[in-house]
């Protein structure tokens, strides 16, 4: 029974979204077709009862699949990198500064942005459930919601980020933000060296979801900062 491991690639997680509970050898999956049918039946019932509007459901799914996601947060980060006054506002009144770029709404009503520096590394988790800043990062990935991440981020943050390939020096303060209330956290990563000439859009393209959670740094691809 291996207790560690780091699996990458789309095949790592069962395609039906099951078995995310912790990489166990024995998977105890509900039959996916069963859930497909049960959810379909429930939706029909709720439509029939007039409790939900199918077009509203479609719009919600479309929104979270296509309109809200980490590109929003990346734009916030890039703006902070190029505009010191914006960065100042972002760190002092994060919700308002994020709203300046048009982002807000459910699970992002009370935002706090925490800044990484050469001496401080921030990491965000929700040990009790899966709180996550939806308006700027979209819906959380499965690993963020999973027992392995939730359990270990607060007790072994250095080990956790190491699994993501990030080795934090001993003299760096690691600050873990456990989202136990309605405040949602976004990490402002360090701007990588050698990006002085890049436009705000190019910078935004470098910023990853993982860097804004705090499990990665922003890096410049080898080929000169182009993607």
């Amino acid at each position, binding site marked *: 029974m291996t207790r560690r491991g780091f699996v990458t690639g789309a095949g790592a997680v069962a395609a039906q979204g099951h078995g995310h509970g912790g990489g166990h050898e024995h998977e105890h999956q509900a039959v996916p077709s069963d859930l497909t049918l049960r959810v379909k039946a429930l939706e029909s019932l709720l439509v029939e009862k007039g409790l939900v509007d199918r077009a509203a459901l479609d719009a919600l799914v479309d929104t979270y699949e296509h309109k809200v996601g980490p590109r929003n947060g990346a734009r916030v980060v890039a703006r902070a990198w190029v505009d010191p006054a914006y960065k100042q506002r972002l760190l002092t009144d994060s919700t308002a500064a994020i709203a300046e770029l048009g982002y807000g709404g459910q699970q992002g009503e009370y935002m706090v942005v925490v800044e990484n520096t050469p001496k401080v590394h921030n990491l965000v988790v929700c040990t*009790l459930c899966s709180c996550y800043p939806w308006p700027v990062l979209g819906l959380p990935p499965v690993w963020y919601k999973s027992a392995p991440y939730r359990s270990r981020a607060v007790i072994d943050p250095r080990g956790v980020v190491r699994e993501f390939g990030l080795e934090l020096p001993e003299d760096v303060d690691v600050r873990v933000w456990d*989202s136990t209330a309605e405040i949602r956290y976004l990490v402002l990563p360090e701007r990588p060296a050698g990006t002085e000439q890049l436009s705000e859009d190019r910078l935004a393209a470098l910023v990853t979801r993982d860097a804004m959670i705090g499990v990665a740094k922003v890096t410049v691809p080898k080929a000169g900062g182009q993607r």
Partner: protein
Amino acid sequence: MNGVHDMGGMHGMGPIQYEKNEPVFHARWEGRVLALTRAIGAWRKWNIDAGRYQIEQIPAADYLRMSYYEKWFTRLVELMVKHGLVTHAEVESGKRAKGSPKATPALTPAMVAPLVSNWKSATGRDVRLAPSFKVGQRVRARNINPPGHTRLPRYARGKLGTIDRDHGVYVFPDTNAQFLGEKPQHVYSVLFAARELWGAEAAPRDSVYLDLWDDYLEPA
């Protein structure tokens, strides 16, 4: 409640399973469960704390076994039944009970965009309340073990910390989850040294910040 959902600091949950280029939903039903939950939420029959509490009440083995949206599906059905929106018989049969009234959806398509980009009605409360603690003050997280919902994780209870910032006034989950009142109070970011939480083996410079309500804290 001291449930298995309160998993900060546990060992043995296995490796982190990272998926490259993860899709937003892994199957169509996952997106529908999310959308149904949001759309039914617009009926305001319950609040976010009651929603979290409902998930915590999934039996522990099932909680660990189920996928995320499977838990959401379970919660949605339980809450709708509990609050009279549907009956178990309707969910089982998939058929609306004879003679049950036909409603008009609470969430219309036009409301979706504001919901996700400009939603104001959450758990902050714009009331003037004196904070019990001030920034920089040493505090101790209370040793409480309520059988109901709470947002004070076990790993912080009894531990010493420092008020790092005052977030303002929010409804209190412990009462709100059980519809026992909003009991609004200040929420603070409280800094705990990793060594205070986990002992001498923890890295000396590391810390964990938790957002904690007045009622979770006492002067140190």
